């Protein structure tokens, strides 16, 4: 009998909410977390950028304990979300379970803020970097801190695949549980790049919107960078059932591949292949009960390509299923996108609420699916996909279904 993997706990922090329940409420209400912020590190340097920030997090970070207070913001987000997910799951990591408990936490970039600070201090004030700079910026900092915090002594590492990091981390952790390398795992991703230097680097790509994020809308102006973390507790199904855990869904499919074509432009075939792989063993049933949390970045590169890929995979059924991009509300969390968006997909599955694509006010002939525009819809969902398609042509798709 093949081992199955289920989600038994969730934790989220992003512009749309400080916790998973607040995140779900704000998504349902279509609350936009995007605002203009000025990043001015001194010496006349200043950038005013539309971003989706997590406000007022510093006090919470300080309360996460002395060790975590000294880490980069991306580790602090991961810890806050993991604390919530573990408490939500009711999981106890005892001595017997610890060697089979994993921590697979993705990030697109790592401790960008700490690196920025260290370089600014060197270049502006001639100061040496803080001696913990390296420990703050390494991409595996969240995985390592979670393993220490919760006593997880099984497989632990970071996965980095730009905007697909979170989906890759969740999918790979689930594969490891299926293969018996772990029984449980904390899986997800974290990102915190809202700092002067990284934002200027993003602006140099000329793909960022200067106002809102408008996925699938003809008046789209580009992506909006967000920050935060989304962490799931994954668990082998029989174990979860035996301890009477609350089960959100089964992570029933995972597809990953690479376009092998271009660093920036996504390929329809790559996205199509990853979605097909994710659903190949699923009984989809009525396509009207399928929800796809789209990658939906609000860029001309992504939106029409993703639309074509969904049509390619589902054929005529593409007109029966429902799609939305919650990036319209919480922005693009880059590496962490797959983490929080998996939680949005679970919300649709568990509560029958499709989070809307807000700011969709000008239909685009190249984007002709039902994107749940502007208002949440009540709808039964049996299968929920979460799409992540990264710069560099790296694709990861998660498929959740009811147990």
């Amino acid at each position: 009998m093949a081992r199955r993997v289920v989600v038994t706990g969730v934790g989220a922090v992003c512009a749309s909410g400080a916790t998973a329940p607040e995140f779900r409420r704000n998504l349902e209400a279509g609350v936009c977390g995007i605002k203009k912020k000025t990043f001015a590190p001194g010496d006349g340097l200043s950038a005013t950028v539309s971003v989706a920030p997590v406000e007022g997090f510093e006090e919470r970070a300080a309360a996460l304990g002395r060790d975590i207070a000294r880490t980069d913001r991306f580790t602090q987000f991961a810890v806050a979300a993991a604390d919530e997910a573990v408490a939500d799951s009711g999981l106890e990591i005892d001595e017997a379970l610890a060697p089979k408990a994993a921590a697979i936490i993705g990030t697109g970039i790592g401790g960008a803020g700490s690196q920025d600070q260290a370089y600014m201090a060197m270049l502006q004030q001639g100061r040496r970097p803080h001696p913990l700079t390296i420990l703050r910026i390494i991409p595996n900092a969240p995985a390592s801190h979670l393993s220490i915090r919760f006593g997880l002594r099984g497989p632990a590492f970071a996965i980095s695949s730009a905007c697909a990091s979170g989906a890759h981390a969740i999918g790979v952790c689930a594969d490891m549980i299926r293969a018996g390398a772990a029984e449980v795992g904390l899986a997800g991703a974290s990102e915190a790049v809202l700092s002067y230097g990284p934002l200027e680097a993003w602006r140099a790509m000329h793909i960022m919107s200067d106002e809102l994020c408008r996925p699938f809308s003809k008046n789209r102006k580009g992506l909006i960078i967000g920050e935060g973390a989304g962490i799931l507790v994954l668990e082998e199904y029989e174990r979860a059932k035996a301890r009477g855990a609350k089960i959100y869904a089964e992570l029933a499919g995972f597809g990953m591949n690479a376009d092998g074509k271009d660093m920036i432009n996504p390929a329809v075939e790559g996205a199509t292949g990853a979605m097909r792989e994710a659903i190949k063993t699923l009984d989809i049933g009525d396509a009207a009960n399928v929800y796809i949390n789209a990658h939906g970045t609000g860029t001309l590169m992504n939106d029409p390509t993703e639309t074509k890929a969904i049509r390619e995979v589902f054929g005529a059924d593409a007109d029966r299923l429902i799609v939305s991009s919650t990036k319209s509300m919480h922005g693009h969390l880059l590496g962490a996108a797959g983490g929080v968006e998996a939680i949005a997909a679970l919300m649709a599955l568990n509560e029958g609420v499709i989070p809307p694509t807000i700011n969709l006010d000008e239909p685009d002939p190249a984007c002709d699916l039902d994107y749940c525009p502007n208002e949440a819809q009540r709808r039964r969902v049996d299968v929920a996909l979460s799409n992540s398609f990264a710069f560099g042509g790296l694709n990861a798709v998660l498929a959740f279904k009811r147990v």
Partner: protein
Amino acid sequence: MAEHEQELLAIIKNHAVGVSGDLTRDTPVADLGIDSFAIVEIVYEVEEKLGVEIPFNANQNPFGEMKTVGDLLDAVQSLMKQS
């Protein structure tokens, strides 16, 4: 009292989460609650605040034999003299 002793004590105390009262030369190092992070932070702060360079190399374990805060102060001061 040796040079900079009060400043050094203040820096160490700031990282000694295990100690609630005053630090003296006789306080056991094992009671300080200093972890691997704190050692590099203490060295960094001493350098920044006192404007000295400590030729500290973690590979040489210069603090290995310390039993009391007095031993720690002596080790830091000895490193400061080398610079």
